[in-house]
């Protein structure tokens, strides 16, 4: 494994880890449900995507061939995260979860 590959993998890993963590921090500290929804849909998805990429690089460089699984997972996450978010937002609006005070506009009646 070349040093460059190793650097690339390391970078991807750390970036992935960082984004995953940031997504989680968002989930933990943002003030209301609707704002919290943003962290996982974006940061976490990207973070895991980066880790996937590092895995693809790692295993292909280790001679295991290009892993389709990781790519499938990433595509899958990108496809599903908005739907999950949409469904959860609908659920929250239905349940009358209050947005934070300074939110402009209103959630719809469900």
């Amino acid at each position, binding site marked *: 494994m070349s040093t460059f590959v190793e650097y690339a993998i390391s970078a991807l*890993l750390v970036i992935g880890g960082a984004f*995953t963590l940031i997504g989680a921090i968002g*989930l933990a500290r943002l003030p209301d*449900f609707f704002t919290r929804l943003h962290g996982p849909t974006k940061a976490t998805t990207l973070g895991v995507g980066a880790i996937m990429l590092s895995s693809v690089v790692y*295993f292909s460089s280790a001679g295991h061939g290009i892993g389709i699984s990781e790519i499938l*997972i990433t595509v*899958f996450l990108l496809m*599903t995260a908005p*739907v999950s978010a949409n469904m959860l937002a609908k659920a929250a609006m239905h349940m009358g979860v209050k947005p934070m005070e300074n939110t402009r506009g209103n959630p719809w009646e469900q």
Partner: protein
Amino acid sequence: MMTIALYATIAMVTLAALLNVYRLIKGPDAPDRVLALDTLYVNAIALIILLSITLGTRMYLESALLLAVMGFVGTVAMAKYLKRGSVIE
């Protein structure tokens, strides 16, 4: 180098998972919990990938694929339950 990065990443993802658990337990509303669970699934995918890299084996990647599928279906089902009651009707 890579080992350090790997361990750092594992630490970050684990921490992320802990934060998710915090949200999951704290709530306050059901959608928060489901969201946290969904995120936890995604974190778990990351952990499985990291485990695979650590072990140098691809034997666990399909588990990660399944995590993605199952996490999604679970979240959708829960969300639907919350707003509609009947998941399958």
